[in-house]
Each structure stands twice: as C-alpha cells, then as structure tokens.
C-alpha cells in the first residue's frame, strides 16, 4: 500500500539569499504521512505565523520546499508527469480560507461546480450533474436558487467558502486539505459543515487534513492533532490527550486562552515567562522559550527534539526529556489509526503496538 501523500523532512524558508537576517523559516523539518486506508482526519492547529498555511501550500504543490520533499504516491511532486499531476489534482482537493481568488470572476458560481464533474467524468448526464450540485449546496446550507446563476462577488465570504466545501463534496477526492474552511461561517452553520466533512470521511473514505487556529473544532472532528508553533511541531498525537491534558507549555497556553462558552469556567491569567525565558533569543534555542513560564538553561541552547511521552503523543519540550526520542520523520508513529480499536486513554506504556496496527 503506497502512502497517499507524504511530507518528508520538509523545510520552507522565505527570503534570505545573501542576507541571512531576512530569512524566515516558515516550516522546519516537518514530516507527515497520510495513508490511503483507513481514512483519517488530521488537524493541524496553529496561530498566525505557525507555518500552517505554508504547510497547506506545500502539500498542495503550490510551492516547493527549500529542503525535503512532498511525495504523492511515493513520487516527489517535482518529478510528476503531466498525467500523474492530473491524478494528484483529482485525488487531493483544497478548500481555502478566503476562496475568492480561486474563482474566475467572469464565470458564474455554477462553473466552479460543473467543471470538476465534467472534467473528471463523474456524472453521466446533465440532469444528474444538476441534481448532485443542488444536493451538495443544500448539504452546506446554501439555497441553490439563491446561489446558482450568481457571480462570485455577489456572494459573501462565508457563502463562497461553503461553495468550495460543496465542490469538495461533489468531487469526492481521496484527500481534502482544508485551510480554515469555516472561518467565515457562523457558529450554528459551522457545526453543520464540519459534520458534512466528517461524514465524507466516514461514508466515502475521504481523508481530511484540517488546518485551523480553532482548537475546539479541531478536537471535535480529528483523530490526531498536530500543534505547530513558529514552524515547528510543539505537540502532536491523539486528539483526546493533547486537548484534555496538554503537555507542551504552548499547548497549555493555547487551550487556556480559548474563551469557553461557560461563564463558570473563567479564563485563567496568563503566566509570565520564567527569569531564564526572558533572556531567550528565539533564533537559537526553543522557539517558545521567550514566552515559557518553565524555560530552563537548556531551552536557550537548542530547540528541543520530539519526545514520545505516551504511546500516542509526542511533545517537543525538555520538561519531558526523560521520555524516549522520536525521530521527526516518524511523527505519525505516534498517531492513532482510526477504525482500529483506539485507546480509551493513551498513557505511556499502557497501550502496545498491536492497538496501532496500520
């Protein structure tokens, strides 16, 4: 079974050249494998500057890595033939945050929905095409009669986002890479759309990489979560423990900052960085040290590697340096495989390899 899509030790650096000070490392030494079976939902969570959008663009072949490679069915995207590229385009679909740019302003909305059906030969007749489009639009809460026949600028940002989700529902690719697909959609509808994406995984075997800043929805729909901070993995693994008992100080800060819809669970106060953390210069040691309440001497020297703190979790933090190391290219070995009897609560050593058999 060939891996469907893989990021292998990918680093992306913007700018730079002769002037090293201008270099921005958007993503550093990132690896991830998406297997064709079983279908999975992986969430990539980060704030602005975390590298999550760079990662989406890399995985979609919209930009090439500075080091490392993106592989589609084992082949480097840079070496795909035209035919393989076309298959990649069909298998891996994108949903973007503000999809305005992907629309051709001169075509009606219908065009963006009809084209993939025709191009990939997914329907037999025009009537079937029309019917499937109407169903897909309804599934994302759009009124077909108010959407079809309109031009992109006549729809709101949230409506355009939903058209892109509808398109993904129509094409039924093998993998959807969704970068903030519901950020402009109201809460009551957001749940509906995320649920339709989840149903796509459950009923049609489509895998999903859900890229977002919203840890709550990430937790709700994903099997595994990767928390990115300034281009590096801070913490990753089974969604349950990562969210319920976060380990990395950054994940803890992120979760503590979420305004919970419960007036009795008040926001906590943010902890100040430690004395040592205040001295940190983010360019050498741990990228989080200058904000970290637990920063120690060693945090200023080198960025921490991944420690496998539990069967289904890794944390890039020296607080967990007693745990065994996990090479970054094997990140997904700390992931639960959906469908296989998953762990109720994954604690270190409590689950053996047999529960994770891919």
């Amino acid at each position, binding site marked *: 079974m060939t891996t469907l899509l893989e990021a292998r030790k990918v680093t992306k650096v913007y700018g730079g050249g002769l002037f090293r000070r201008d270099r921005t490392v958007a993503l550093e030494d990132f690896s991830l494998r998406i297997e064709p079976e079983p279908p999975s939902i992986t969430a990539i969570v980060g*704030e*602005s500057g975390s590298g999550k959008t760079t990662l989406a663009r890399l995985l979609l072949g919209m930009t090439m890595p500075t080091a490392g490679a993106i592989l589609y069915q084992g082949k480097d995207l840079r070496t795909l033939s035209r035919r393989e590229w076309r298959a990649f385009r069909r298998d891996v679909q994108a949903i973007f945050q503000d999809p305005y740019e992907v629309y051709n302003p001169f075509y009606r909305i219908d065009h963006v929905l009809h084209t993939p059906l025709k191009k990939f030969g997914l329907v037999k007749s025009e009537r079937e095409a029309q019917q499937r489009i109407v169903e897909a639009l309804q599934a994302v809460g759009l009124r077909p009669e108010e959407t079809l026949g309109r031009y992109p600028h006549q729809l709101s940002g949230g409506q355009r986002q939903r058209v892109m989700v509808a398109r993904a529902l129509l094409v039924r690719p093998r993998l959807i890479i969704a970068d903030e697909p519901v950020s402009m959609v109201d809460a009551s509808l*957001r749940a509906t759309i*995320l*649920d339709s994406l989840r149903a796509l995984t459950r009923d049609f075997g489509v895998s999903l990489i859900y890229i977002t*800043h919203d840890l709550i929805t990430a937790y709700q729909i994903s099997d595994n979560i990767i928390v990115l901070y300034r281009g590096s993995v801070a913490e990753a693994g089974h969604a349950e423990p990562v969210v*319920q008992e976060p380990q990395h100080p950054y994940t803890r800060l992120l979760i503590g900052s*979420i305004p919970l819809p419960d007036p009795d669970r008040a*926001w906590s106060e943010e902890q100040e960085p430690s004395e040592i953390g205040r001295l940190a210069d983010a360019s050498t040691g741990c990228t989080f040290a200058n904000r970290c309440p637990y920063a120690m001497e060693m945090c200023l020297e080198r960025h921490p590697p991944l420690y496998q703190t539990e069967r289904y979790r890794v944390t890039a933090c020296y607080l967990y340096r007693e745990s065994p190391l996990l090479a970054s290219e094997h990140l997904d070995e700390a992931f639960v495989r959906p469908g296989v009897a998953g762990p109720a609560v994954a604690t270190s050593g409590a689950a053996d390899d047999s529960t994770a058999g891919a």
Partner: protein
Amino acid sequence: MSDTSLRMGQTRPEPAARPWEGAEIVLGVRDLRVSYYTPRGPVRAVNGVSFTLRRGEAFGLVGESGSGKSTIALSLLQLIKPPGRIEGGQALLDGKDILSLSEEEMRRLRLAEIALITQGAMNSLNPVMRIRDQIIDAWRDHGEPVNCREAEDRIRDLLRWVGLRPEVARMYPHELSGGMKQRAVIAIAISMRPKVIIADEPTSALDVVVQRQIMQTLRRIQRELGAAVILIGHDMGLMAQFVDRLGVMYAGKVVEVSPVRDIFKDPLHPYTQLLIASLPSLARKGQLQGIPGLPPSLLSPPPGCPFHPRCPFVMDRCRVAVPLLELKRPNRLVACHLYERDEEQA
C-alpha cells in the same frame, strides 16, 4: 477639562460581582429601526430593538452575520451611511437623544462620551502618523488644549494603562503587531474617558492568546474607568467570559436579554437554546449539531416570529403574531410565545 483628563493611580475599587445591579441607566435604546434601501427593496437590518445599559456594566449583543448587531453599533454613533437610514427610535445617553443630534454635536460626543472600537480598528490608524500624534489629534479635535509637556505625560500614562511601552508613542502603526495596534486603538478610544465604549468584534482578527490579553486589558480598563461596554460579536465563548448581561439577536431583533449565567444555564428562547447546543465544546467529543435551516431573508421576512420557520416548538400563533420582548422571569426578557402560554397555564 479636569474630568476628561486621565488621572492615573486613581483606580476604582473592584466592583461587586454584579456591578450593573441597581446602577443607573446610562444608555437606553428604544425601538431602534434601521433599513438599507437596496435595488431589490428595503432591508430591515434593525427592526425595533430596545435595550438598556447601566453604568459600569458589560453588555453583550450576540448574533450571527446579518442579525443587525453591527448596524446597531453604527447607528449609536450616527455612522450609518446611505443607502442605510435610521428610520425611528431613540437612544438616550444620560437623558439626551443622541439619534437626533446634529452632525457637529455628534462629532463632539464621539470619543468624549461614547467611543467605538471596531473589528478593523487596527486598520483605522493612520499609517503615516506616529501613535502619539494620533492621540493628540483626537484631543485637539475635541477642543482640548494640549500643552506639549503635559501631553507627553498623559500619553505615557495612557499607553501604560493599555499595556504598551512608552516607546510606542513614537512608533508608526506598521511597527506594531496586530495586538499592539488594537491596544493603541483602545488607548485612543478611552483617552477622553467615555461613559460608553462600544466594542464591535474587537478581537476577531487576532489569535486566541492575544485575544485573551486584549479582552482582559479591556475589562480592567472598563472597571477602572467605570465605563459601560457594549461588546458586539458572534462568539458565545467571548460573551461568556466578558459580559454581565447578554442580548441575543436574530434577524434584526433582540429575542432574549438575560444575565449571562442564566442564558448559558437555562436559555429561554428556542434560538438561544439551539445556538448554545451548536457550540462545539472541549468537554464532549463528537457533537456537532448545527441549527437546521437558514436565517430569513431580511428583504421579505416571514410574518409572525422571525424564527418560526426553524423553530422546533412552532405554534399557530407564531406564524401570525410577532412576539414582544417582555419580562418573563426575574431579570429576564424573552420574545417568544411559548412563555406566554406557560404563564396562562400557571
């Protein structure tokens, strides 16, 4: 002059748990109506909204896009532009109807008594002016004589108050991060000690960590200033964390107003109930329950209750009679026929 200048170190005592209770009403909005005249007909964006704001309280207006919440903010500052028009209603700020003020009177009132912090406020900073000059500009604009030495001191205090270093005074907006810009905007908004601060999605463009910092800063300042805040937004979580009382909007109307704890514990209006049930939580996994159906088109709203086409408890009279926002429980207003029926039976 003296009562508008900032006096640091004069912090007010921590307010009681329910600061609004018993406090006088600082702003009373009555039957506000705003329409936008589009080629396809008038859109009734705000359709008879009433609420009161007490001194020092944080009042939330929550609603989804198109519910009219931002239009309310703009109306209160007379910033509605054609094709929009305020069609009726009153907004009494300390007994004076601010909707009937002349443009010049309103200009003087803004900032001095009622200030607005908006979603894109970070972008409302002038990119070619230093922060200090923008603050001084705002003061001059309101006829405050600004003496240089004194201004420097006041600006330093002001910036410290919102959590910015004094150096920021000499910086240009592009030198600041998003969170710092929003702090600078708050500094300008509070620089004349307004009685009412309207914050319309003040943190929607910011990351959650920065959002918490900004909202906690805003809350601290609000308390120290004794100002009332109207927080407008769509994020129920933010409302739960920030406001004392919450108004829920749907299709241009306020459908429920209650103390925030009551709303989350025991929502009365069916829309509020479904809205709260649709919130993804960190406690339970696998529950993603949206509200079926769509909000009505404001060009041709349904007769009766605007929520009736989506309401699981719809009755015959909901299709014909518009429910009024009335007191149905102590401190709780709701616009729903269900509760009238309950009372009749009781």
